């Protein structure tokens, strides 16, 4: 019994050290290939500026009534842009996972006595760091152009927790999407719906301004409770049961992504 426990301990430890090794590898790869990180951070920033300065005046008036304007719209849209940062950054996860799979190095890892899952956890933790940096950059731009959240210290801690949870879930999903892609090109397209989904929710305009069918979809798709939770924490708007639904979605997405990823990764390489 004790030998069995020590074997388990040892394999757990190897899973951790191997994951740390793979994380170092992925962080180095990000530094050597910075253009992708820049692109992934740039896109939400462009959307932020576009929506605030081009559409913001008109949309702000629509949201806030007579008193509404660009500043009100900036406060309204920033939580959605932060979420879009996650869905944009995780596209990078799919791309780098798919890149790995097309190169021979993963077959090398498969013929070594290492904790197999570390190949994937290295990507997940690396992407998590990349995504949180991207969010920091986007939030920095938002604050610089006048975003004024009402959140207190406790709210901010909750915001960080919620963002990590959301990023973690979408990263596991993206790992699976990257593994399922036949090529790097395919992997770079497969995450597109994730970037568009915030538009079909309460991210950019309130859902009650939408036509019936779209409104129904917008209210039940996962991004709306995520956005509402984030908006509630940052701006003090009512959250209601959105937080619980958001956590539920994240658990489902993370677990589904994890199980799908490990299944795909452990199937026989036929490429």
């Amino acid at each position: 019994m004790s030998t069995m426990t020590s074997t388990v301990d040892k394999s757990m430890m190897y899973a951790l050290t191997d994951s740390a090794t793979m994380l170092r590898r992925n962080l180095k790869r990000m530094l050597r290939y910075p253009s992708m990180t820049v692109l992934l951070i740039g896109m939400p920033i462009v959307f932020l500026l576009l929506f605030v300065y081009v559409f913001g005046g008109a949309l702000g008036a629509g949201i806030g009534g007579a008193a509404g304007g660009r500043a009100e719209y900036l406060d309204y849209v920033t939580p959605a842009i932060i979420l879009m940062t996650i869905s944009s950054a995780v596209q990078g996860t799919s791309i780098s996972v798919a890149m790995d799979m097309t190169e021979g190095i993963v077959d090398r890892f498969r013929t070594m006595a290492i904790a197999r899952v570390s190949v994937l956890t290295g990507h997940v933790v690396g992407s998590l760091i990349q995504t949180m940096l991207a969010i920091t950059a986007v939030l920095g731009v938002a604050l610089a152009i006048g975003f004024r959240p009402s959140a207190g210290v406790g709210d901010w801690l909750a915001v960080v927790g919620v963002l990590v949870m959301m990023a973690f879930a979408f990263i596991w999903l993206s790992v699976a999407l990257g593994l399922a892609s036949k090529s790097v090109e395919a992997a770079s397209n497969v995450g597109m719906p994730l970037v568009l989904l915030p538009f079909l929710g309460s991210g950019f305009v309130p859902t009650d301004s939408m036509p019936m069918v779209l409104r129904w979809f917008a209210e039940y798709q996962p991004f709306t409770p995520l956005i509402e939770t984030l908006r509630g924490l940052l701006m003090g708007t009512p959250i209601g049961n959105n937080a619980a639904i958001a956590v539920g979605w994240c658990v489902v997405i993370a677990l589904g992504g994890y199980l799908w990823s490990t299944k795909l990764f452990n199937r026989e390489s036929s490429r």
Partner: protein
Amino acid sequence: MTTSQPAITATGLRKSFGEHVVLDGIDLRVPRGTVFSLLGANGAGKTTTVKILSTLIGATGGAAVVAGHDVAADPDAVRAAIGVTGQFSAVDNLLTGQENLILMADLHHLGRAAGRRRAAELLEQFDLVEAGKKTASTYSGGMRRRLDLAMTLVGSPQVIFLDEPTTGLDPRSRRGMWQIVRDLVAGGVTIFLTTQYLEEADELADRIAVLEHGRIVAEGTADELKRRIPGGHVLLRFAEVRDLESAARALGQVSRDSEALDLRVPHDGSLRSLKALLDRLDGASVEVDSLSVHTPDLDDVFLALTGNPKNEKVTSR
């Protein structure tokens, strides 16, 4: 594990992808400390064999034991004892040569200091000290293969699989790779090498198995295989078509190439039969431009065994 136990055994190994049978029951036995070469054209099943023996894919039938462990029952024990350099480069292109080696050392849990030492040793051994600081994407084909093999060696494997290690290399890099293989064997490791180059198998392998459509059609040492072909040939070159014609008439059973103006005459390698041949040419007063005697090489063996015409993808360089 006793030393008498072979490094690799396979019995009735089969693999099919759906309807398509890739390996149709192959048996292998590779003694420790030897080089075994699996020779075959593209699509013969060489890479599939390596993938099964290195635990990358499972067999459809049969069994294989590598370094004393069953590949299906205990793949992790096999993985701990082997090193694989596949056909496609398995280096991280965004890392430097040194970082690639340290990555391997970390995955083998060598510890920081020992890992760095091992990486430095291998960079030295593979003539990559200068290149070690550059990212692998800048490497030439030969350097990339050397790094690839160096990464395989970080964990000091007992059994090394080399899947077409010199495909696409220039002649100088190829010879360098051969020397590395010889040094490894001298150090006591077992090498399982696949190649489509007959010369390479002849140069390196203690034993050769010829794989054809998923079956082993012949196995033995290079000499044993060559002995299966009764003899070589004498190649006669002529300056004029007229001479070629009269020589062909005088000699009877020959194969001729009228464009290149040469004749291949079957020949057993003995001096007596060579003299007889010359006498007959003299008797017909034919002017021969040049003459060369060819003993059978693995090329002849391969063609005779597989009945594979030259236009298929068998390459002999």
